[in-house]
């Protein structure tokens, strides 16, 4: 059904420095700004404990709806007690003033936290217009309701999400989470990805090169993932078994949400560390695990790699979401191209990613168009999981952007070229993406173990025009999570969708970013809402944040 244009007139952010039309090759460039926040995972080199190398999730979201994305960092705790018994372990919320100043407002917001936190997922689960936070950790998770007044309230118990001890698998270690409306009822449900069965008292030493290092995940047992259906009354129902998730036990590291077969239902991809990945196809009433059938369970040579963070998004502009995940040195950053919903093909080798990424170790990837040329590039937060140096790989690494050269080309790795050597190499972990200064170029915040957080401000020269789309669902969930967006310019069509799940243990809340290249106007913006409503806007002026409210069905 064709719907009329419905555009809620809301002030938009005008670009202050409108970029000129891009030349054939833009120079993707970032400059460094640091924040005084440090991930403190309570590392104990004499006897390393697994969670200490896995901390570092970060979220960007506009917590107070002032139009500027703010930053929330998760943090560790005392490794023996899993309690934040020192202010150095506090989670932190920084309010963004849009001019490069980030103010610590953690205490006022009530987001200090109490346990050993790892990951974060942003979503407005009660559709009140204020994004809420789910924080996952080791043997304890927290749901924070955003009160809309700059404060948050811990509603974990009330919501029914305080069951962190599984009767069969013991205390759960949550490594990732995502908000997704699995049944398209307009309410965001919560998928929780669990990692390893771990106990500080029974953990063993893993000597390496004369020291002790973190043990391989092969030494631990995996844990099942969880799905909690939103009842709409502030509570959630555990439907993990009913929806078929519990039967598949892995060592979950990352989660991505996208409708890979365009059947109108969001599907879930989960990376499993040193095991085969899961692709959960949503039937509307349960998930079927189809990783092998769809050719994303393993990389093409059949190796079990250390899958870490991922992104599940269309990078080649064919309308179908693709998958990238990252791993350790010699394992590459595998890229799987979606073959029109009929399976995936690994294109790591043919697109040059194999050769580029082989010496690298990654934690968090994200497909974002950094030079606004209409093609999503790939950022990877880099660093090894181990802590003891070895001859064949480096522990501390610089971050990298891989420039997407278009439909038929090969990736180009930009590390020093993009300015990432302005910070010393580090064990980078989570990353999140947003336009912090409203200039239309996507910036990045990255955490690193034991180092100050890095904000990489996008200073790409000759970046193209852009359009950010902020969705407001009415029949669909208010965030518009799962909405697929097509933007057409003179160069062709490009696609994206609304999700806040990207990278490792991290969350980027949007709006959904598009680079328009040389066009100052998008010819068509087409939004496929989860409700099934399709909304089309024509001749949309670019270089602004466009707020779109879901039209009523006719």
């Amino acid at each position, binding site marked *: 059904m064709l719907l009329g244009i419905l555009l809620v007139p809301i002030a938009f952010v005008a670009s202050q420095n409108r970029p000129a039309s891009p030349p054939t090759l833009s120079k993707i460039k970032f400059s460094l700004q640091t924040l005084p926040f440090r991930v403190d995972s309570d590392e104990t080199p004499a006897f390393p404990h697994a969670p200490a190398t896995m901390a570092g999730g970060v979220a960007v979201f506009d917590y107070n709806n002032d139009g500027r994305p703010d930053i929330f960092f998760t943090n560790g705790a005392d490794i023996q007690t899993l309690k934040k018994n020192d202010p150095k372990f506090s989670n932190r919320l920084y309010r963004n003033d849009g001019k490069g100043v980030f103010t610590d407002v953690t205490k006022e917001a009530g987001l200090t936290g109490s346990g050993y936190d790892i990951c974060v997922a942003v979503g407005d689960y009660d559709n009140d217009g204020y994004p809420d936070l789910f924080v996952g950790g080791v043997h304890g998770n927290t749901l924070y309701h955003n009160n809309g007044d700059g404060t948050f309230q811990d509603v974990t118990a009330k919501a029914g999400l305080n069951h962190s001890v599984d009767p069969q698998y013991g205390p759960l270690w949550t490594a990732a989470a995502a908000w997704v409306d699995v049944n398209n009822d307009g309410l965001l449900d919560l998928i929780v990805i669990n990692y390893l069965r771990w106990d500080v008292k029974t953990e063993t030493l893993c000597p390496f090169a004369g020291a002790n290092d973190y043990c391989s995940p092969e030494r631990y047992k*995996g844990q099942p993932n969880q799905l909690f259906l939103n009842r709409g009354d502030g509570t959630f129902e555990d439907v993990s078994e009913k929806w078929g998730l519990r039967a598949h036990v892995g060592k979950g590291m990352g989660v991505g949400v996208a409708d890979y077969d365009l059947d109108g239902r969001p599907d879930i991809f989960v990376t499993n560390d040193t095991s085969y990945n899961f692709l959960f196809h949503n039937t509307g009433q349960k998930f079927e695990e189809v990783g092998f059938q769809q050719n994303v*369970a393993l990389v093409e040579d059949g190796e079990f790699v250390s899958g870490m963070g991922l992104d599940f998004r269309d990078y080649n502009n064919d309308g179908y979401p693709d998958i990238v995940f990252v791993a350790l040195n010699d394992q590459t950053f595998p890229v799987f191209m979606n073959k029109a919903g009929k399976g995936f093909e690994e294109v790591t080798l043919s697109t040059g990613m194999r050769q580029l990424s082989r010496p690298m170790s990654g934690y968090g990837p994200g497909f974002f168009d950094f030079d606004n040329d209409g093609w999503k590039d790939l950022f990877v937060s880099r660093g090894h999981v181990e802590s003891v140096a*070895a001859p064949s790989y480096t522990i501390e690494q610089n971050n990298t952007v891989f420039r997407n050269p278009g439909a038929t080309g090969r990736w180009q790795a930009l590390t020093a070229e993009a300015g990432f050597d302005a910070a010393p190499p580090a064990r980078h972990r989570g990353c999140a993406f947003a336009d912090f200064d409203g200039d239309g170029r996507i910036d990045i915040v990255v955490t690193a173990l034991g180092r100050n957080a890095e904000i990489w401000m996008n200073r790409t020269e000759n970046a193209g025009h852009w359009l950010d789309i902020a969705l407001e669902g009415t029949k669909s969930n208010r965030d518009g999570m799962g909405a697929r967006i097509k933007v057409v310019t003179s160069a062709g069509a490009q696609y994206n969708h609304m999700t806040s799940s990207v990278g490792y243990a991290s969350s980027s809340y949007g709006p959904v970013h598009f680079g328009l290249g040389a066009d100052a106007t998008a010819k068509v913006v087409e939004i496929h809402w989860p409700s099934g409503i399709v909304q089309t806007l024509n001749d949309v002026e670019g270089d602004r944040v466009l707020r779109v409210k879901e039209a009523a069905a006719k």
Partner: protein
Amino acid sequence: MMNGRSGLIAALVQFILLFHGCLLAQSGNPSAADAVALERQGRIEEAERAWLAITRRNPVDAEAFASLGVILSRQQKYAEAAAAYRKAITLNPKLPGIQLNWGLAELKQGHVDSAIQHLRAALAADPQSLQAKTLLGLSYYGAKDFKNAIKYLRSAADADPDNEELHKTLAQSCLSAKLYPCAREEFEKLERLNPNSSAVHLLTAEALDGEGKTLDAIEEVKIALKLTPQEPNLNFVLGHLYWEAEKYDEANTAFEAELLIEPKNAVAIAYLGDVALKRGDNDKALALLRKAVALQENIRLAFMDIGSILVDREQYKDALSAFRRAVKLDPTETDAHFRLGHVYQVLGDNAAAQREFATVRELKQKHDRAIASKLASKSAN
């Protein structure tokens, strides 16, 4: 004249002994002294007969049995020697040296567990015994208990730093235990003792490779090659190291050099094929890989690569055959099952594809359970 006279006397003594020995040989009642004399003259078989006669005459003479054991060992009749030692120790558990000799006899027969038992007893009786430590170390090595092998061999090697064989065995133990720094240290000592030993440089390379120091390993193999350029397999090892380091041009050169020495080295041909595949020359790769498996049909890598090439060419049925061969060569490796599954998928045989994928999952889960079990028993101990 003194020399001439002393020489004459020595000859006379020998003659007398010989004459006496002959008499003994004809006599049915040799004494212990007689047996010893025969042994000194190198008349071992006769000495054996003498000891046998003594033990028959006096079946409770522990020392006679012990001596019989020694004589039998000298003739490599280790099973009989062991029996003699058993008898000796039964008669007199405190007889010195028996456990050591018995341990040696067992070791010589390959009965490493038994050897360990006796040699441990020998060491308990004489904790400083270098012989016991050495033999115990060798026994543990034979039993593939490399941790204990290393412990005793290191002790022996420290006491005998110029003993190349000891260091070699110690180095091999470390290598087998994947204790690469330990292996490398020993090989470096061996290199100092014998810098011109190609074998030592080669083994050092293996240790370095195990530590992930592939480039250093390459340098060691190059030294070995300079020492023995025509040694078969050396170029192959070099090629393999380059292949591991993804230096395919150099790997190619090394494999070709190997084939000049050993034209029918099927594994070298297979790796040449793999290099060609990695360089994108599928035609050349396929020809080489097929040649390799025609010469030697158990090269798994070749079948995996053949399968990959045939998949690229959409010759799926032939690819099936190749991956099936790979599975047959090692059904516990998941990669071939995984590839097989995909080919079945393309051919539309989803049931077969699912079976292969199920196998991948089962093998992975079995592998995980094995690790968990190993760790559980390690912490229980």
